[in-house]
C-alpha cells in the first residue's frame, strides 16, 4: 500500500520541481580510554528533498544512511567510573542505519503556519544546553550538530512582527499521553523574551540494564531572554519541572552494583546563563553556565544508576553545575581556529578541545578536533584521556 502511495505521489512531486540537496560526511575518531585506544567512525550520506507545490505549501524530507566502522560495540560500564574493570558488560551496538528522518509538510495560511510530520524542533536560546528543550539532547563536543526529527504537529501564529505563539503536540498512541508544548515569544526593545510551558503525560526512558523507567507526568514551565548589555550578547533560559514517577527503580540489584534507591517525585530547576562578544580583531568568544537541579551535587553521591539514567537521556546532565566556553577566530584564508572547553564544576573534571576548520573546496569542509580530558579517574570526564576527531563533509 505504501509502495502504491509513493508511486501515485511521485508524478506530483516531480511536477512540482523538487530540489535535492544534502551532504556526505565521513568521520574518523581515536580515543584513549584508560589503557585502551579505540578507533571508530562513520560514513554518512544525507539526502534532502524539498517540494513547493504552491507558495503556501512546503513538503520536506530527508533520508540518512549511516555506516559505522571500527569499534561499533561499546560497553556502557567502560564509561562508569569504578566499573571499567569490573567485568560487567552492557553492550550497546551501533548498527548501520537507513533512516527516514524529517518528513513533513508546512502549510502557510495568512494568519498562521501549520507543520505536520517529523520535523526539527529546537526550542530555547542556550547554545550547549536548553532547559526548555524536552525533545532533544546535545553533544557538548558539537552542540550545534543537527538533531533527529520529532513527530509532531506545530502551529505557529504570528502576533505582530515580533511576537509569535507556538503550540506543539507530539502524538502518542493514546491521546492523553501526547506531549504538549506552548511557547510565546515577544521582542521588546533590544531583547527577545519567551515563555514556555509543556506537559508530558508519560515519558518512557529506556535506561540500560534498568529497563524502562516511566514518568507518569512531567510539567515544565520555563522561559528565556536574549539581548545585549554593554556590548556583550546576553541570554538566559530556565525551566522548573515537576516529575511524578510512576514506576521508579525500586528493587533493582545487579551483581556488585549497589542497590539503587527509588527515585521519588521531584521538583527541580534548570537554568543557563550565557554571554558572547566579537572583538575588533574578529575573535568571537562565548561562555555559558548551566545548573541542573536534577543532577547529583556531590561526586560521592553518584551511583551507576545516575550514569546509566543520564546516558539514557533522563537528565540534561549527570551533575549539577557546568561551564562551557567557546572561542573562534577566522585566522587564515578559509581556515577557522576555534577551541571549546567544558567543565563539570562539581567533580572538577572537564575537556579542552581545540579545532581547525578548513573550507578546502567550495562546499567541502575538513575539520580536525583534539580533546584533552582532565579530572580524577572517578570523575565524569577524567575517565577519558584524550581523543582526536577528523571529519570531512561535502555538501551538494
Amino acid at each position: 500500500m505504501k509502495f502504491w502511495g509513493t508511486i501515485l505521489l511521485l508524478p506530483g512531486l516531480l511536477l512540482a520541481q523538487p530540489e535535492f540537496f544534502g551532504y556526505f560526511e565521513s568521520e574518523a575518531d581515536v580515543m584513549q580510554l584508560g589503557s585502551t585506544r579505540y578507533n571508530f567512525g562513520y560514513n554518512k550520506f544525507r539526502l534532502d528533498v524539498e517540494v513547493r507545490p504552491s507558495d503556501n505549501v512546503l513538503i520536506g524530507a530527508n533520508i540518512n544512511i549511516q555506516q559505522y566502522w571500527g569499534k561499533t560495540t561499546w560497553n556502557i560500564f567502560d564509561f562508569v567510573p569504578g566499573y571499567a574493570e569490573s567485568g560487567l558488560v552492557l553492550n550497546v551496538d551501533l548498527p548501520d542505519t537507513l533512516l527516514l528522518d524529517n518528513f513533513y509538510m508546512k502549510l502557510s495560511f495568512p494568519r498562521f503556519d501549520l507543520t505536520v510530520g517529523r520535523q526539527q524542533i529546537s526550542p530555547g536560546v542556550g547554545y550547549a544546553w536548553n532547559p526548555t528543550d524536552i525533545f532533544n539532547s546535545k553533544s557538548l563536543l558539537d552542540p550545534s550538530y543537527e538533531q533527529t526529527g520529532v513527530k509532531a504537529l506545530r502551529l505557529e501564529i504570528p502576533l505582530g512582527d515580533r511576537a509569535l505563539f507556538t503550540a506543539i503536540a507530539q502524538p502518542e498512541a493514546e491521546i492523553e499521553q501526547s506531549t504538549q508544548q506552548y511557547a510565546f515569544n515577544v521582542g521588546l526593545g533590544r531583547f527577545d523574551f519567551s515563555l514556555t510551558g509543556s506537559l508530558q503525560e508519560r515519558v518512557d526512558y529506556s535506561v540500560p540494564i534498568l529497563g524502562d523507567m516511566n514518568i507518569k507526568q512531567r510539567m515544565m514551565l520555563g522561559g528565556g531572554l536574549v539581548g545585549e548589555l554593554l556590548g556583550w550578547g546576553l541570554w538566559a533560559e530556565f525551566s522548573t519541572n515537576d516529575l511524578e514517577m510512576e514506576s521508579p527503580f525500586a528493587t533493582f540489584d545487579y551483581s556488585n552494583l549497589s542497590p539503587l534507591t527509588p527515585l521519588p517525585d521531584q521538583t527541580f530547576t534548570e537554568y543557563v546563563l550565557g554571554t558572547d562578544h566579537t572583538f575588533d580583531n574578529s575573535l568571537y568568544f562565548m561562555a555559558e553556565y548551566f545548573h541542573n537541579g536534577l543532577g547529583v551535587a556531590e561526586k560521592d553521591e553518584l551511583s551507576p544508576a545516575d550514569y546509566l539514567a543520564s546516558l539514557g537521556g533522563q537528565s540534561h546532565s549527570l551533575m549539577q553545575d557546568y561551564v562551557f566556553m567557546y572561542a573562534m577566530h577566522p585566522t587564515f584564508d578559509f581556515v577557522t581556529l576555534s577551541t571549546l572547553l567544558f567543565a563539570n564544576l562539581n567533580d572538577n573534571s572537564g575537556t579542552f578541545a581545540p579545532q581547525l576548520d578548513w573550507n578546502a573546496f567550495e562546499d567541502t569542509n575538513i575539520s580536525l578536533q583534539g580533546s584533552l580530558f582532565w579530572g580524577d579517574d572517578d570523575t565524569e570526564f577524567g575517565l577519558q584521556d584524550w581523543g582526536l576527531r577528523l571529519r570531512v563533509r561535502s555538501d551538494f
Partner: protein
Amino acid sequence: MKTKLLIFILLSISAVFSQTPTAVDIVDRVTNVMSPENTYSKGTQTIITSSGKERVFEFESWSAGKGESSLTRYTKPAAIRGQAFLMLNNADDIWSYFPRTKRVRKLASHAKKQKMQGSDFTYEDMGGGDVFQTKFTPTLLGEETRDGDLVWQVELIGIPDLEPPYPKIILWVRQSDYFPVTLDYFNESGYNTKSLVLSDIEMIENYPTAMTMVMTDNKERSSTTMRNLEITYAWEPPKGFFSERNLKK
C-alpha cells in the same frame, strides 16, 4: 546703469546656483540616492583571498524603509543554502536562521562586526538607512576628477557616543548625481583598512545603481565583489515580511 544692474543680478543668481553645497547637504543627498524606499535584488558575492582562492555565493535580498529593515537569504553554495539574516533598525537587531537545525538565533549588535560568510563585508556594511547622517560629522575636504567624473571628497568622523561603524570614512561623491563612487574606511589609528568601489552604475527606476561593488581589505589583501544580477525598487513588502516567521521560510 540698467545694463550694470542686469549683469549684477545675473551674476548674483549664477553665484547662488553654482554655490558648492555644504558637507551636510551632500551627505543628505547621498543618503537619499543610496536609500530607495524598498529594494529587491538577486546577486552574487565573490570572495578572492590574498592567495587568490575564490568562493562564490548567491543570495536574494529584500529591504524596506530606506534600508532600515532587510532580509538576506543565501541560495548558493550548498553548504549554506537557506541560511538567512534578518536585520531591523539599521542592523542594530540581527537574527540568523540555520535551516539544518531550523533554529533562529538573535545576534547581539557586536555580531555586526563579523564578516558576512567570510567576505570583506560586515553585516554592518550591509545595513542601509541614515547612518551617515546620524552617526557622523561630515566635512567637505575638496573636489577633484575621478575617472572623468567631478567628485567631492567628504570626510565623515564618527560620533563616539553613537557607536559609529567606523571611526572615519572618506566618501568620493559624484557631483552629477550625488552617487558615492568610493568609500575609504579608517580605523582608530588612521589606517585605511578597507575601500569600497562602486561601479557599472546604471539608472534603475530613477535611482543610480551600482551593479558592481568591490570591497578591498587593505590589510588582508583580500577582496569581495558583489554583483547585482537583478534589482528592482518597485517591490512592495507584504505585511509581516520582515519577521521571524518569514526568516524561516
